[in-house]
């Protein structure tokens, strides 16, 4: 049985069951895990098995990439449910699953009201994400792209903190608006393909071979780029991220930071570089400029924040600047550096958000001015926070440094100036990370605080797993590099175009 459709549909079905379970046996006590939590856990475990089967199972060689599944959906328009999996999407799906396990184990404390609905939206977002990573039919890709937003909007709007409505609305408006621009360029591409070859199809592989004039290809590429730039926050359009993160509940912000930002990066690799290679190379200088601007700007603003989550949000903008830089250097090294950076950033920022969420649950505040030093009260949590802060500032030996080093090396090949500016970003990263550590972890504890429980050893175990992953990514990234290399597009036209000729 082909694992791909199961991979996509399983979470949404699990979500439904979780919702029902949430209603059938409402939460008895806050600490005890209610039924819907168990359902979510079971869904995730089954999902992992399917993913293992997809990863190590015998590759079904009907499509150009290892995993392939195709089912006609709207034959008249040439739209088919095409799911293809290559190394890149597989590694990002593995990252998503780790994020979900992280959320399930660590960030479930404050979800007491409507737990079932929360879990359903959580798993629906996961479906959207996995769909986005697998879909190779442009229409299906757009469908999952929008599907991702709605539950996340619900999560932020319903379970967020004080100013959640505005943040959720801002998040939705930004991503939705840019998504529509992407739809325009998808349609533009399909129509130009149809005019030239008479074949109406949304299939990624056949569309990749449409001969385009430089102006048209640049235009279409920009359409895609804007959508992914908003998602992977590139500086001028990053405005939604800090608000969305500060107001989102911990699980939502882990998911948001962990994976949703990566869909932007994934989209850029898949739909900008590989679909419009020449336009991308022409656009590269501007994109790299934006990347460097993102790095410096994100780090600069992270330094000035007083809100922990906002600081982490700006730091992820800075990290994503590296990803953008890496993708548009044009060399495979830059691409792999960007992918490693995405994986490492996912892990480290999710860790930081869980720590920030834990602090907020215990102290009911995110303002660094009134969170005194926590090392005395919560050594384990502070230790984890310190570790993830070190990863965030790019300590060699941890995943982020590997990604950043490869990106910088690839950029240096292109031209030394952006690389030097990006390296200056590293200094700024050290400044804001250490400033955070010295304001909430290694600082004089605030008087008048009632004793606060430290992280349970079980949760510390989960933290430890994430730390091990980060160290592994930092010290022995070679398997990850070979495993997540995006396969190049097959040069010959796809075997039998999926699209129906009208």
């Amino acid at each position, binding site marked *: 049985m082909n694992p791909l459709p199961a991979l996509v549909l399983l979470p949404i079905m699990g979500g439904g069951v979780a919702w029902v379970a949430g209603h059938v046996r409402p939460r008895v006590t806050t600490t005890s895990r209610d039924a819907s939590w168990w359902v979510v856990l079971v869904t995730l475990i089954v999902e992992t098995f399917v993913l293992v089967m997809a990863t190590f199972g015998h590759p079904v060689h009907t499509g150009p990439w290892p995993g392939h599944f195709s089912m006609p959906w709207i034959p008249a328009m040439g739209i088919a449910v095409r799911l293809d999996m290559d190394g890149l999407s597989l590694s990002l799906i593995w990252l998503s699953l780790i994020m979900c396990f992280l959320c399930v184990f660590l960030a479930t404390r404050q979800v007491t009201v409507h737990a079932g609905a929360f879990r359903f939206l959580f798993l629906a977002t996961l479906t959207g994400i996995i769909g986005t990573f697998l879909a190779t039919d442009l229409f299906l890709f757009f469908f999952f792209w929008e599907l991702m937003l709605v539950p996340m909007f619900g999560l932020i709007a319903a379970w967020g903190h004080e100013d959640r409505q505005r943040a959720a609305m801002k998040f939705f408006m930004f991503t939705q608006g840019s998504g529509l621009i992407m739809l325009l360029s998808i349609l533009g591409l399909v129509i130009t393909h149809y005019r030239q070859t008479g074949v109406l199809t949304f299939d990624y592989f056949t569309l990749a071979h449409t001969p385009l004039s430089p102006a048209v290809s640049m235009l279409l590429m920009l359409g895609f780029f804007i959508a992914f730039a908003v998602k992977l926050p590139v500086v001028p359009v990053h*405005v939604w991220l800090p608000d969305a993160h500060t107001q989102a509940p911990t699980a939502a912000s882990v998911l948001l930071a962990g994976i949703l930002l990566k869909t932007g990066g994934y989209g850029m690799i898949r739909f900008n570089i590989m679909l419009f290679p020449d336009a991308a190379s022409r656009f590269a200088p501007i994109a790299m400029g934006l990347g460097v601007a993102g790095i410096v700007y994100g780090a600069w603003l992270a330094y000035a924040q007083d809100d922990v989550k906002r600081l982490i949000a700006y730091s992820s903008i800075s990290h994503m600047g590296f990803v953008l830089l890496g993708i548009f250097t044009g060399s495979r090294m830059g691409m792999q550096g960007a992918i490693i950076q995405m994986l490492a950033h996912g892990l480290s920022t999710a860790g930081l958000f869980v720590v920030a969420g834990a602090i907020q649950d215990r102290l009911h505040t995110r303002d660094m001015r009134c969170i005194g030093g926590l090392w005395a009260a919560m050594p384990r949590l502070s230790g984890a926070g310190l570790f993830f802060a*070190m990863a965030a500032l790019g300590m*060699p030996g941890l995943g982020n440094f590997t990604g950043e080093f490869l990106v*910088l090396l690839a950029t*240096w090949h292109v031209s030394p100036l952006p*690389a030097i500016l990006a390296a200056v970003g*590293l200094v700024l990263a050290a400044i804001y990370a250490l400033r955070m550590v*010295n304001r909430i972890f290694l600082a004089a504890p605030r008087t008048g605080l009632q004793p606060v429980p430290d992280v349970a050893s079980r949760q510390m175990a989960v933290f430890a797993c994430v730390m091990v992953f980060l160290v592994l990514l930092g010290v022995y990234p070679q398997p990850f*590099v070979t495993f997540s290399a995006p396969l190049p597009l097959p040069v010959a036209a796809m075997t039998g175009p999926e699209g129906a000729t009208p």
Partner: protein
Amino acid sequence: MGEILLPLIILCPLVASLVVSVSAGRMGACAIGTVACAGVGLSAVISVILSVMLLSGPATDALRVVLWPWMRIEGFSADIAFTLDRVSMVMILVVTIVGLLIHVYAAGYMRDDPGIARFFGCMTLFVAAMVVLVLASDLLCMFIGWEGVGLCSYLLIGFWYDDPANTAAARKAFYMTRMGDVALLCGLLLLATATGSLRMGTVLAAVTDGQLPPFSVNAAAALILVGALAKSAQIPFQTWLPDAMAGPTPTSALIHAATMVTAGVYLIARLHDLFAMAAPVMAFMAVLGALTLLMGACKALVQSDLKRILAWSTISQLGYMFLALGCGVWQAALFHLMTHAFFKALLFLTAGAVIMRAGHEQDIFRLGGLRHAMPGLTMAFVAGASALAGLPLVTAGFYSKEMILSGVWHVHFGLTREWGLSGHPLWGIALLGAFLTALYIFRCVFIVFCGKAGTRAVGRTSRLMSIPLGCLCVLSLSGGVIEMPDTLPRLHLFSALLDPGVPLSHADEPIWLVLAGAIVPLAGLGVAWVLWGRRVSVMREIPGQAAIIRPARDGRGMDVVYDRVFVQPLCLLVWLTRLDIADHAITGTGRLTRAASAGMFRARAGVVDMLAIRATGMARWADHLPGQFQNGRVRWYAAWIATGLCAGLAMVVLS
């Protein structure tokens, strides 16, 4: 067999660090101390065994172990690989042995401190990172150690985090070193782009047979030099080291005297082939070293805080090493590095013991007259001081300084065709520095140990702390024997040890050169005795003395400049832009449009008042157009339908 032992050197301290930090609450203080010392001790033993093995083998072979391929990407490949050759052998011995002694001392020193687990966790992690830095045969792998060492120094300086000044000093140290690291990283990127790999062997081979254009060789050397300068707190980056004294004394001894600050020197020593090709960078390094040497000595001369004196003296001794490196005699630099590690660690540890017993009093003027209360410590401190000053024949410092002086004397920089910088002026500065060194260290000795009795000393130094002091005394006094200047019996064990090929001895070395090097420290001792040794301190009578000393004393000179030039404007700028400009812009435009429509409404209302009631209806219409439009009056709708009809017909009529 070596392949297994070499990684163990790194693994032992790492495992010890993990065990200690994970077991934060559960292990007792002495248990933690023993685990830490065991970890470092084991690696010391292994490094000794490996050194013996290496020395027994042929001179040129080196033990290279590739653990696993780190990055294999087209265009760049790096792997986690460690090499033990003569140079890294010397450094690994220094790091592990001095580290072990300091750990034993720290076990006693920090026994009653609640955060001992975190302390030893960081210390052993530091040793592990330092060992990685030393043994790495791949520059990128060395970079891991380089940053790890910076991180541990940050954690240890800010160990007592209750006082914000400590954490501020820690952050300052990390920022300064981080700037240097970024420069070093750019240098590595440059080399990696040019040679496709960062293995030292390939890089040096590529540089020596001229694959790189001269400009990029100079650029790479300059960038690496900046990295080394930041790490070793030389001229532009020297402000962080005196503040780093905020950490516990064993930290200062290990990190800020013996190992971390000398990492830059070690790196340049290893890449001396690269630097040899970059003459202007060498000249700049030599001049910079000389300047730092002088500045450090002057600053130390006027400090009143015991640990700050030692900090400034470390900076000036590092200046010596950079001067030696600049003049190409990197063997002398390494030798001085080794002896410096011994006597500076000794001085710091003794100072720590003195401060602890004097009720945490660090001001030398209030200490006074302690030689009766703690004779042992006095003897240790005097031994260290004499080694630092370089008293002839009897101390290690003398031999290493002598080696540097002779090296500097013979160097000649052919910078440009006609203008070259000969070594003589630098030699003169180095000699003056030696005199000042002897002056300030013996000033400190006389004020603290001789003179009238200051604070009352309490308790005794525990045996655990005195053993390392003893060992360090022996090392710092006898350490120099293995490398004699030529005039004395020809004994060049150390330089032979490093690279047997190149005979260092200069046949025509004038005899007075060595004599000068011997007399100057004695002169410094004499002058110090005259000024501070006798009962009534002559220093106080010299008029105007306060004017000179006060600006230099607080040592804030460069700090204030940096603060005013860099930090203040940066903080102001950050505060100004604390609101996200882009976010501000977008929310701003939102607010702007609302204000505009309200403004428009107010203006409209003003004009319409004059008209009849229907006109006021129109004004309300302007405010909320759709609401006003659907006002529920049937005839209003009919009227609009009729208007529509007329309009339609008008179009027909007119077209």
